[in-house]
């Protein structure tokens, strides 16, 4: 008889009782766990590198499909800001920067835009792709990282305007320009660390993306983007000196406009902070990853 399977029924009754707590397992040492996580993160990124390329391609493709201006938008923000701040700092208040002000401002705004648009784009990257995040496994850092790569393409497009400005203002090209990729790399490491934390934070608490808007604006004026922030002294000056974005942006100017190496101390500080931010944020992200599908 199909219905009365006494064995099956008896077993079912047994499990319907309150479940006993499972045995608590011993945890591995913190250091070996860290080493295991780092190995896992690296091998996953290698394994899924094509997905990173596909996601970046997708986002670039979507921009072309959905907007008429396409890459024009990549230029609009830094160029508009450059014009506005040029009016303020050449007509209203004269600001001595050593180079023509528009080019001073643009060399700050271009890398700043790389940073800010990476953050803006990445903060939504996990929540906007929630159908993927809840259905398929892949290293989730792919999503904020592809946001950074898309902004990097914008950065490259924006660099064309910089070249035009340099020709227009007769700024000579120095050999130090060859060191620019190192600065870009440091900036990307710092950006990656911040975006991982933001994307993760926004997944758990949606307030993060609203806070970010205020944060970015404040952070821009705390960085030497459109004026030399080093001229702020006192206790506030001390605080601002900790901001790793200032040495990064100043490094672009030294290498590009003055043909000198950036001051070693601040740049070393920025590099250290960037490496630390990336490693810490990535490990935290990797360890929280398995909670994403049930928390989104």
């Amino acid at each position: 008889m199909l219905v009365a399977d006494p064995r099956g029924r008896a077993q079912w009754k047994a499990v319907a009782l309150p479940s006993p707590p499972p045995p608590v397992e011993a945890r591995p040492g913190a250091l070996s766990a860290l080493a295991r996580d780092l190995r896992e993160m690296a091998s996953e990124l290698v394994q899924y590198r094509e997905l990173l390329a596909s996601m970046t391609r997708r986002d670039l493709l979507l921009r072309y499909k959905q907007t008429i201006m396409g890459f024009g938008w990549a230029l609009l923000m830094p160029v508009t800001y450059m014009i506005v701040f040029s009016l303020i700092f050449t007509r209203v208040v004269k600001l001595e920067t050593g180079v023509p002000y528009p080019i001073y401002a643009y060399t700050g705004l271009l890398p700043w835009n790389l940073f800010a648009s990476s953050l803006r784009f990445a903060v939504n990257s996990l929540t906007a792709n929630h159908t993927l995040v809840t259905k398929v496994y892949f290293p989730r850092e792919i999503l904020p990282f592809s946001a950074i790569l898309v902004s990097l393409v914008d950065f490259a497009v924006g660099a064309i305007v910089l070249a035009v400005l340099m020709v227009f203002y007769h700024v000579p090209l120095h050999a130090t320009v060859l060191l620019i990729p190192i600065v870009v790399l440091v900036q990307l490491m710092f950006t990656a660390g911040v975006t991982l934390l933001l994307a993760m934070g926004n997944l758990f608490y949606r307030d993060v993306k609203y806070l970010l808007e205020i944060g970015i604006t404040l952070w821009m004026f705390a960085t030497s983007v459109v004026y030399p922030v080093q001229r702020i002294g006192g206790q506030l000056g001390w605080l601002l000196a900790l901001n790793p974005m200032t040495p990064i942006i100043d490094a672009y100017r030294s290498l590009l406009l003055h043909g000198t190496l950036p001051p070693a101390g601040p740049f070393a500080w920025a590099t250290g902070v960037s490496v630390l931010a990336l490693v810490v944020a990535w490990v935290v992200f990797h360890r929280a990853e398995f909670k994403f599908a049930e928390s989104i």
Partner: protein
Amino acid sequence: MPDGLVHFDGVWKKFRRGERHDSLRDLIPAMGRALVKRAASGEGALASEEFWALSDVSFAVRPGEALGIIGPNGAGKSTILKILIRLLRPTRGHSLVRGRVGSLIEIGGSLHPDLTGRENVFLQGSVMGMRRVEIARKFDDIVAFSELGDFIDTPVKRYSSGMNARLGFSVAAHLEADVLIIDEVLAVGDAAFQKRAFDRMKEMVGRGVPAVVVSHQLERIASLCTGAILLVKGAIAHQGSAGECIAAYAGIHGEASADGAGHDGLRIASVRVEGPQPVASGAHAQVVIAGVAARDGTSARPVVGVRVRSLQTGEVVFATGTISHELELPAGPFELRVGLQMNVPEGVYAVESTIGQWQRERRVETGPAALIQVTGGRWFWGQVQMNCAMRLGMNGAGEARHD
């Protein structure tokens, strides 16, 4: 021979019911509560709003095996699959999947609406871990399988939901997987596509790729799987062949919950199928429904109903009740014997009891149910076994009769 492997070892998974806080406003009070609770309880303990979605589940699937997971809704079937594909991490225990995982889950919804079908194939392929060259090589097969040839360069937002699901499934079905995870995908697309999808899965399982299958279509489980587990409330209630588990599932179905199903004046305690199983198509089955009608003599007229549902399609194929048979339930315990001629195609059918009340409005509640498996009988194709009689005349010289 594929060398994929699934090993699920003593897995426990804790979930919380109720709403999760995703605004900072809720964070601070929640953290306060969490601190107090952590101090009060140990590691493996449950907070009041938490429950074990899985408790101590273990199984292994080796090459050449396919494991079916059956059980009522909320038993934890999908949680197992999500742990296997690493979307969730077990609270305790280990889940190991060796080899490339092909998860045939419903992914139509994750296609990007603004991209064309072609662009989505490449994107979904790489999301699932395929190399670009691999996708390019299989592209024509994927499109052919989805039958979307003419629409492959149309943005997916113009697709119907069926087309969407077909494209999603087709990509997943072309991943060269070492392990297959299949979740209720047979509900995708029209009947022809479902058959193709099922054949594809059967072919992959036939090649020896180990598979874990979750489905409510017990028929499919029976024909695809070499073994099964019956999951009830997050624990394994029965482990064995697919047939055994389906039988055990029927036992659970037939038993009412502790307080019994019913309302006001009527309670149904059990539904049983008498006699040998499976039943041949066209043969009779005897179902016994036992229960109690109240003696309080309210004006309500209690009605016991019978509903036969195909587990393959989920549709009700037949329903009737005591009122249609001019039966009045007496007060006190009763035993209702229901004879059913199973004029239906092969498959597993749930005989559900219903409790109705013939008053001003009709209220119907579903009570316990039992399963009837129909196999064999004279072969036919279609939806109804019409017990066909055929007579052959031979030029009036004699008659060959067979009915």
